[in-house]
């Protein structure tokens, strides 16, 4: 579809995408470095330590590293939408395609593709770090069992869907800075609290990140016991529902509004 190509062209003719890609990879790399560096280290006073590099549990948690960078694809999605308003290129876009729902659909599809790409990039980096460290530790590399394919799928899906969240939020808020700040507050404050405090976890498991975690099945032990998560099929449905809601928001807020 020509419009999707046009949207991808918009993204790839400015610098933003590779800056975000590098930042996302750095963040994932930091995550991985931490997991690998502290693997097998005993916790203080007999608290459970991180699993050793030769174990399957280590691989399971290491493969989720890419999911932590969802905020970056979300910001990418936000900017894909809001920069059109910020630089007023939206008028040119709508003059070329007056049926605005087509523009929104094209943006969402392009966002989905870019999100997938970022997810795959994060997985490649993970593979490059995890496989050698497992081999060096004398462990057995698991790629197709131990739930690892599901985790990989979860990482890629999370990345793709968070791009859609960003596009929807950008269409709703339109002000770039407000939308980015909103996304950061949401991910780092609201979702973190909902995920960490047990009393709030009944709500927290229904947030996008809660649902995403159920997909990649990272059992975060925040010191209060096992996290309360949805089964992964339910998590996947919740994520898709969010994506649909955000896509709907993006269409409804864009299709009728006057551009002045």
């Amino acid at each position: 579809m020509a419009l999707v190509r046009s949207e991808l062209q918009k993204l790839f003719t400015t610098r933003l995408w590779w800056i975000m890609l590098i930042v996302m990879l750095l963040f994932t790399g930091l995550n991985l470095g931490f997991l690998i560096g502290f693997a097998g280290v005993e916790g203080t006073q007999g608290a459970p330590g991180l699993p050793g590099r030769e174990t399957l549990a280590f691989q399971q948690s290491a493969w989720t590293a890419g999911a932590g960078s969802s905020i970056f694809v979300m910001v990418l999605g936000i900017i894909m939408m809001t920069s059109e308003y910020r630089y007023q290129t939206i008028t040119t876009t709508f003059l070329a395609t007056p049926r605005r729902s087509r523009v929104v659909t094209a943006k969402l599809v392009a966002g989905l593709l870019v999100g997938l790409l970022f997810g795959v990039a994060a997985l490649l980096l993970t593979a490059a770090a995890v496989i050698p460290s497992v081999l060096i530790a004398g462990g057995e590399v698991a790629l197709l069992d131990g739930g690892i394919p599901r985790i990989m799928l979860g990482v890629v899906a999370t990345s793709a869907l968070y791009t859609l969240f960003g596009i929807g939020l950008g269409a709703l808020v339109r002000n770039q800075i407000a939308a980015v700040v909103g996304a950061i507050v949401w991910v780092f404050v609201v979702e973190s609290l909902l995920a960490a405090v047990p009393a709030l976890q009944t709500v927290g498991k229904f947030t996008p990140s809660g649902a995403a975690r159920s997909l990649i099945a990272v059992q975060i032990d925040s010191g209060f016991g096992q996290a309360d998560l949805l089964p992964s099929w339910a998590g996947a449905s919740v994520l898709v529902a969010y994506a649909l809601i955000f896509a709907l928001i993006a269409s409804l807020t864009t299709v009728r509004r006057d551009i002045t």
Partner: protein
Amino acid sequence: MTAIEIRNLSKTFGPVRAVDDVSFSVESGTVTGYLGPNGAGKTTTLHCLLGLVTADGGTALVNGRPYSALERPLAEVGAVLEATSFHPGRTARDHLRVICTAAGLPASRADEALEQVGLAGSAGKRVAGFSLGMRQRLALGTATLGHPRVLILDEPANGLDPAGIEWLRGFLRTLAHEQGVAVLVSSHVLSEVQQTVDNVVIIARGRLVHQGSLEELTGNGDRPVRVHAADAARLVPALEARGARVERPADGVLRVHGVGAEAVGQAVLDEGVLVTELVRERSDLQEIFMELTREK
């Protein structure tokens, strides 16, 4: 052929009646000036016409259809809007290519359009480094990408230097008079478009106040003939005998009302007076414009 037709168009923003029951049309092969002071409703009208703003009432059609119903809009209509802007980090060529892709035009059109507006040398530069005039040219290049037969421009002369304005005039006239394109160009300065337009539509506070040819506006009725002659006094009786009313604003200067330049020339010849200047005065368009658009 009627390229643009606006009928009873209205648009209200909160308490402001930005466009109030406006109707006019633009024919192919002509340049129509859409004039009005700041805040008159020009931009709003054009935005309604281009489907960017939903009108409260009335219709605005391009080639007989609402803009949003055009199958390949950029091949039918080109627009340069006040708000036309570019991503500063994108090059001029990439900017046009993105639009070519969306509009199904060949990517080669990007470079052709840049050539046409005199930006070929800056094709690979980021727009952030462009001057106002260069942006205006790029906007014009964007508008002509699809070889449209209808061109809509909102204050296109803003930011252009005198040479740029001269170039724009030629560009628009050539498109309209040689290629049959319908051009609608807005401005808040009548004198700016005076030399370009065939027809004028004047709007003030959202309402249409005049529509017609430029001649109709200036009126052929009373355009005095100014005569400079050292011996001007000798001409007065001869002119008055021909039914003229003569003013003498200064020594050696006559302003002759009520007769044409030919009659004045005849009087000069009959009286054998040495004349250093004989000219039909231009009516002051700006004054007419001010008069028409003045608050009641």
